[in-house]
């Protein structure tokens, strides 16, 4: 954010196309049978798209300091904590 590093316009357009392709890919992957991997593929593509948006459109890549990256990473970390530890209960309830 600090030195106003705007990516050149071509980058934006490339990212935009990549996002549209990602969307098409998600829909395509959902229609073929990958067994339990369907959800994994969908989430992987979604995460890749989200990363593109965060890094290029939200300029996290060009951010001069690590602080903003730390904010993003720790937020994701705590979100995963919520999901993972909740699953630690639900996933093991039928063991005993």
């Amino acid at each position: 954010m600090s030195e106003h590093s705007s990516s050149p316009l071509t980058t934006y357009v490339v990212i935009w196309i990549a996002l549209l392709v990602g969307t098409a890919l998600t829909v395509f992957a959902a229609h073929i049978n990958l067994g339990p991997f369907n959800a994994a593929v969908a989430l992987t593509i979604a995460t890749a798209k989200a990363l593109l948006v965060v890094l290029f459109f939200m300029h996290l890549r060009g951010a001069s300091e690590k602080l903003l990256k730390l904010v993003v990473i720790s937020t994701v970390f705590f979100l995963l904590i919520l999901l993972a530890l909740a699953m630690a209960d639900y996933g093991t309830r039928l063991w005993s």
Partner: protein
Amino acid sequence: MAVHGETHNPALLHHFAEPQQQRDAASLGMWIFLSTEVMFFGGLFCAYLIYRLKFFGEFAAASQTLNWQLGMTNTAVLICSSLTVVLAVYAAQHAKRAMLLGSLVLTIILGFAFLGIKAVEYAEKFEKHHVPGPSFQFENVKVPTAPGQPERFANPSHAQIYFALYFVMTGLHALHMIIGIGIFVWLLLIAWKGRLTPEYNTPMEIGGLYWHFVDIVWIYLFPLLYLIDLRK
């Protein structure tokens, strides 16, 4: 509101030493606000995860009553709006007034397009009695199964949980869209008045961050809500 001792830069608030500090503070503030937003949606994702695993069949059956073509269109609409937002930020930083105003107008139009499509989808839910509550109906809908496996009907009350989460998640997202459009109308107004300059465009920048975040939420909502178990 701020009391200025020596007014050298009208946009610089009194308690900041220099414009750079003010910009950095605003942008960090927005990122941290987005952290809060992530956790806000996070609670819903947690509920979604647990019930999806518990009632996978019903979630798939209910998901397939959604119109994924509309969902995909909306995803594309939002992605396009993200492009126009990033162009608006660029234009503000490079003093390209026409491009700035054009991008903002386009963003607002795309935002309304998204809400319009969403409204069409919601209307369809009302018609089909898929809105959770007393008039909810989901009788005799088969759970998608692989060939060869016995078929069964979805349990309506479990399907209702899917639709409850669907409406809360997309409704909350739509609420964010409405707020986003409000912000962008305001941005358009101050851009029109020429108050967004290469020296001072923090509102545009942090407004953009917010819009992109709303886009990212949808990027996850789309496959999670619309594309469950389509293969069968």
